[in-house]
């Protein structure tokens, strides 16, 4: 009994650990000794994780800020936006009466940038980049990633992608405006719209750099998980976080190159005059002489990444949530193996459902039927996961920390958004729903909000590991309840607007009588969006305040978690463990067993213990 309550991880690791002679090489002494190599061009996975996180936060503020601007246009089309002119310059036109209106072209640019930034920069790099980097080495008992150098490059390619995208915001022709999916011909013909000129060139360059970043990161994550697990850390003992990051990296590695292949062909069509995606196009009444291509081909290539991409976003969040739910419910995760198998099933299925985004693109309806079936089958592993999360909570000794609240919120969001996926997955219903606000509601709840909740759960939970201090819990709870209620307030009404047929990506509905009675709804949504945005700024304040002024961490393992990251010193140095590396004796979910609260993974199994994994 006493070994559990009073055990000292240092002594345990010294006795039981594995000596890799890491510190004999004196890496620790000369490694990253100056400011530049320590904080800027760092090769330490923990610093790189923070770089990903803070860069992601920067982009989240920009991306969400853009949505506030276009929501103002949708909610209050008749109000003057002249006050935004100092920020947006010529994109706000002011008439004689002093009324400022948002340039429609720029509205589309904002929507496009919002989508691109949130999907790729925030929820891919900011989420998976941050937590894969932070947790993979720490939770599997490795000194660092397999290749710290590639890891560093992964961040800097992301950074470069960001610089290119950011600079496109300042072009006189504006950033790309053809939607985050960049369908041709809008994305190929510079004369199609002003954003399709230089804006699209920079967009493509930026995203190709981004793909390189994802691939470098993914190669590392996969190699590290497979090759650098410490003794005793079998695959079936890995925390679900690691399973999620691992499978996410595999999906990314198989699908992002396909996206790159599509972008390269777009570049060929744009710059070299080929016609992969162009055919029968009239511009200004004149036929274009580029024929023989197929725009639907682009859609196939894009969605072959595009659908797996949504799981690249959600799986890491699922992993974080599984871990947080288990730790704060003081119970083992229910159905650990079922969780792993459903991650694998989702990953596999995610590659064979892409055409559900193309039901309305003129693909053969018989082919659509096959995709309907596969799409609906995804609901099965998804439901397994939801069931297991809820069962984990059932009868748990729940601690309602901010991290836990966000994890529970995630489950709620995933259910609400997943259900509407089943509507959309039926190609017949999709005829009505496609390209309406119903789709916007679906993917924002199931992916946007849910993934953000997973990320928040992760940040509140592992903040002490990152900075040695806690975030403020009161602010955290205000953040949670405000965001939870606010997010539903934003997206729930969109289902109704969408069912009534209101199309997405429209600058204004003023000329459509059929949609005029949604004015009040649109106002309501916009107000909710502004409130929620404000709450995220509160989170940002809490985050940075806590880095320097938060409550100090006094014990290593504040949440009483079993996993290895909490056996490292509070101020975790390079190489993660000061002496030997820990050896693992059990799975990650020995909570509430034999009347004990938890058994850390480094604790040897004793004779009188009931069964363990």
């Amino acid at each position, binding site marked *: 009994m006493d070994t559990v309550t009073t055990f000292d991880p240092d002594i345990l690791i010294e006795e039981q650990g594995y000596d*890799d002679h890491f510190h004999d090489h004196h890496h620790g002494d000369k490694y990253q000794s100056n400011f530049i190599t320590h904080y800027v061009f760092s090769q330490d996975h923990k610093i790189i994780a923070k770089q990903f996180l803070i860069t992601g936060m920067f982009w989240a503020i920009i991306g969400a800020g853009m949505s506030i601007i276009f929501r103002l246009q949708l909610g209050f089309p008749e109000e003057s936006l002249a006050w935004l002119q100092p920020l947006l310059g010529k994109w706000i036109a002011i008439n004689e009466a002093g009324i400022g209106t948002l340039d429609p072209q720029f509205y589309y640019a904002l929507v496009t940038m919002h989508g691109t930034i949130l999907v790729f920069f925030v929820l891919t790099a900011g989420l998976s980049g941050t937590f894969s980097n932070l947790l993979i080495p720490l939770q599997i008992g490795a*000194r660092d*990633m397999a290749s710290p150098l590639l890891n560093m490059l992964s961040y800097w390619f992301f950074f470069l992608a960001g610089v290119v995208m950011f600079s496109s915001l300042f072009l006189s022709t504006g950033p790309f405006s053809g939607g985050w999916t960049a369908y041709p011909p809008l994305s190929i013909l510079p004369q199609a719209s002003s954003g399709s000129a230089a804006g699209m060139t920079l967009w493509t360059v930026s995203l190709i750099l981004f793909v390189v970043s994802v691939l470098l990161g993914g190669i590392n994550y996969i190699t590290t998980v497979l090759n*650098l697990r410490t*003794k005793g850390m079998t695959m079936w003992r890995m925390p679900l976080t690691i399973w999620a990051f691992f499978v996410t990296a595999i999906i990314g590695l198989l699908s992002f190159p*396909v996206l790159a292949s599509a972008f390269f062909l777009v570049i060929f069509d744009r710059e070299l*005059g080929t*016609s992969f995606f162009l055919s029968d196009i009239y511009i200004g009444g004149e036929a274009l002489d580029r024929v023989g291509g197929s725009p639907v*081909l682009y859609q196939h290539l894009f969605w072959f990444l595009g659908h797996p991409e949504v799981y690249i976003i959600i799986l890491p969040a699922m992993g974080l949530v599984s871990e947080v739910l288990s730790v704060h419910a003081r119970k083992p995760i229910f159905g650990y193996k079922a969780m792993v198998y459903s991650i694998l099933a989702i990953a596999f299925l995610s590659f064979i459902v892409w055409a559900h985004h193309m039901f309305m693109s003129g693909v053969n309806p018989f082919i659509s039927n096959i995709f309907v079936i596969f799409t609906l089958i995804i609901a099965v592993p998804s439901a397994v996961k939801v069931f297991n999360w809820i069962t984990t909570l059932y009868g748990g000794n729940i601690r309602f920390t901010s991290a836990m609240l966000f994890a529970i919120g995630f489950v709620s969001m995933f259910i609400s958004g997943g259900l509407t996926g089943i509507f959309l997955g039926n190609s017949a219903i999709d005829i009505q729903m496609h390209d309406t606000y119903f789709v916007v509601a679906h993917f924002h709840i199931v992916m946007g909000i849910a993934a953000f909740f997973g990320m928040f759960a992760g940040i509140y939970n592992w903040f002490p590991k990152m900075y040695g201090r806690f975030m403020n819990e009161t602010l955290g709870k205000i953040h949670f309840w405000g965001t939870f209620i606010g997010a539903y307030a934003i997206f729930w009404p969109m289902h109704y607007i969408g069912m009534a047929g209101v199309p997405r990506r429209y600058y204004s509905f003023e000329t459509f009588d059929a949609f005029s009675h949604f004015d009040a709804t649109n106002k309501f949504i916009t107000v909710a969006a502004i409130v929620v945005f404000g709450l995220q700024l509160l989170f940002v304040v809490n985050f940075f305040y806590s880095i320097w002024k938060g409550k100090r961490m006094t014990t290593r393992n504040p949440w009483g978690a079993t996993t290895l990251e909490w056996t490292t010193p509070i101020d975790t140095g390079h190489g993660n463990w000061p002496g030997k*590396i820990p050896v693992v004796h059990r799975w990650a979910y020995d909570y509430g067993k034999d009347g004990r609260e938890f058994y850390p993974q480094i604790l040897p199994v004793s004779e009188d213990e009931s069964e363990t994994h």
Partner: protein
Amino acid sequence: MDVAVSNQQTRNKIHPHKFALWVACASITMMFMAWTSAYVVRQAAGNWLEFRLPNIFFINTALLLFSSVTLHASYIFFKREKESLYKGLLLVSFLLGITFLVLQYIGWQDLTNIGVELTGNPAGSFVYVFSGFHGLHICGGLAAIFVAIVHAFALKFKVTAKRKLRFELTLTIWHYLDFLWLYIITFIVLQS
């Protein structure tokens, strides 16, 4: 700098860097598979130009395969500590690689001469895309061989585990690019 690597090599048959390289190859393969799938889909849609690939591409295939053989031989001589053969064959492989690129370029000219242009029917454009991007990857492979050459001539000859690993990585890259080209050319031949 291989901090993480040092700890458990002994427990794994494959070195993490080599494993990482295989993973990278898998993702490059995905990119080319995407293009070949696009080719199939586009071809099925009709309006497709039929033409025969100029002979030079086949000759070049043999040349690339031969460069793999010379590089592999160089590696074997390296292990057997036959210094001059090792260095010589390394240089030969490098030159063969350069020749391959030049001949591919001439192949493009032959294509243009029979009326298959980059900007024409996608059937032709695809061939340029395949060979062009393969060529870019060959440049990367040549860079790796170039580094190997610099090491071979600048460092004192000695067979160490680290240098063996480095050579094996280079060799893997080059064999892989060979295989990639074989896939491409077989694909084009079978599809037309």
